[in-house]
């Protein structure tokens, strides 16, 4: 039983992290980043190249991928998004969708379509506590999730850049009047999304295996997390992600694993039909 819970929390953490990435780019730059999954995959491949092809070992590779994430985030935002930021959401969504197509095609072209083994992060496979086996990879996912959530939360609440982001999300014009540089804030959001993507991509690849198409279903679940958070509340997104992970495990445990993947989609439909503001309408820390 506890193993189902662990699995649920682990994957829930991944959904939460990706969902946070989606939230940041959505609220700060008005783009629903359909390409978040592909971004994640790309950075995981970069990590793989540094670790295996260049033989640097996973530790340096991970740091390397984070650095590349910063560069990619900055580039994506400043070169592509910022110039067209005044367009309406549909146009921006279209750009994100075409990015999705382009990035997938390019990854498959450059690295090839086959699946690859991704180096394990640490050499531990399992941890035994009082006779119960805990899967180590899941522990890393939960830890990464916690750290990520805390970092993002602290960033938004206690740093001036975070404050600027929140103001910009609420009211871009007011923010500009107050002297907030939208470019800086937007860049920060995209860099954050890229970093979060890098972490999730690497975690996923090391647990399973690396493939250009590995994020297919996962990012849809991040959308669910986003929706549960009403698309405004980071707290909501995080809880949403974890909740989804647990629900999936629960459904698999009590009914059948076959319905696991439909859970997220159903939740999207139900939440948007009955509670479009999300389940945490009062918790919009953007306001605090």
């Amino acid at each position, binding site marked *: 039983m506890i193993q189902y819970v662990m699995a649920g929390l682990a994957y829930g953490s991944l959904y939460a992290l990706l969902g946070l990435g989606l939230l940041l780019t*959505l609220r700060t730059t008005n783009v*629903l980043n359909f390409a978040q999954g592909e971004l994640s995959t790309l950075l995981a491949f970069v990590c793989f190249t540094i670790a295996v092809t260049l033989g640097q070992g996973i530790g340096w590779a991970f740091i390397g991928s984070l650095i590349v994430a910063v560069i990619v985030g900055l580039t994506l935002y400043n070169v*592509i998004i910022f110039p*067209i930021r005044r*367009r309406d*959401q*549909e*146009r921006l*969504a*279209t*750009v994100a*969708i*075409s*990015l*999705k*197509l*382009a*990035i*997938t*095609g*390019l990854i*498959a*072209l450059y690295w090839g379509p086959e699946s690859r083994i991704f180096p394990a992060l640490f050499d531990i496979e399992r941890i035994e506590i009082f006779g119960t086996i805990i899967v180590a990879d899941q522990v890393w996912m939960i830890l990464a999730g916690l750290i990520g959530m805390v970092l993002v939360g602290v960033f938004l609440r206690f740093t001036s850049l975070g404050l600027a982001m929140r103001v910009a999300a609420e009211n871009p014009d007011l923010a500009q009047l107050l002297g907030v540089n939208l470019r800086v804030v937007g860049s920060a959001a995209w860099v954050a999304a890229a970093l979060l993507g890098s972490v999730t991509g690497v975690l996923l690849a090391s647990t399973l295996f690396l493939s250009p198409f590995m994020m297919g279903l996962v990012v*849809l679940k991040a*959308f669910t997390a*986003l*929706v549960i958070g009403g*698309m405004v509340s980071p707290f909501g997104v995080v809880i949403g992600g974890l909740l989804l992970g647990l629900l999936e495990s629960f459904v698999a445990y009590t009914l059948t694993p076959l319905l696991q*993947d*439909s859970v*997220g*989609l*159903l939740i*999207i*439909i139900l939440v*948007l*039909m009955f509670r*479009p503001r999300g389940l945490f309408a009062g918790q919009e820390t953007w306001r605090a």
Partner: protein
Amino acid sequence: MRSLLSRAKIPLLTILAMAVAILAASETNSYYLYVINLCMINAIAAVGLVILTGVAGQISLATAALLAIGSYSTAILMVHLGLGFLPAAVLGAFATTAIGTILAGPALRLTGLHVAIVTLAFGIIVVQLIGKGGTFTGGMSGMTLPPVTILGWALDSEWRRFIVILIPFALVTAGSIRFLRLKPGRALRALRERELAARTLGVNASAYKILAFAYASFLGGVSGALYASLKGYISVDDFTLWNSIYFFVMIALGGMTSIVGGIAGAFVVTAAPEFLRGFQEASQAVFGVLLFLIVVFFPGGIVTPFAGLSRLLSTRKKRAAAPGANENPPGSPSR
């Protein structure tokens, strides 16, 4: 009715001329006709999406699911109930309209991106359900349609299928353009631009949103039924999320709000992979990058050059007639 026909006459003639030309060029060549048939089928659904997303502003990523419902209803009615193609297709289109309009429910209270996400989820779930349908839907193995005949006329050549697809295509195109000019169409457009103002002026937003969904669903169903007859065999692999995304891309390429643009976009997206065959492994990347460039640099869609040309010509005429005439800016829903 007459004006409808006259409007449809010239494009119909053009298509017929083209088909005759192709036919003359090679008697047994069904490859080009097949691709064109596919383009027209996709164009029908794209027109519906233009009305729904471009004009009424409801972003929908469920188009492939609508086609799925249309295709599978037709197939199920033909296979399990022994209906002929025509009645099955008609019933299938209505079934699709009914199910697709359900989406209007959540859309009524939601805005842009929420609608996008809900349609995204709906689109995937519908197809997943179809895949779990066991022997009723063929499950994951798909369904094969019995030979299609319409009023005793067997659709056993690409040429015949071309004619059968051409008729709805022309009707839908002409009809939709006309629809946009009539009151419901204008109301939809008004909704998108200024919902609050429209409501104040007495426009019943909810009713029109439902109408938009119904319209798009109906066309999706028609498209789906024709798709099933074109291929003869359907499976869930025909209706994936990527297919919905491609439909969205079609109208985005065409400028979102333009029926003509949507059709052009449908032709381009459907036929482009055929042109890109030479690129082999790189074709997906090439397509994605090209698409990305077009979307970023031509926000009004690929029809903008055409629109620009038309504006230029009419501006010249107007300048000759009366200076200072006001023209519509590009990308606004004027067609």
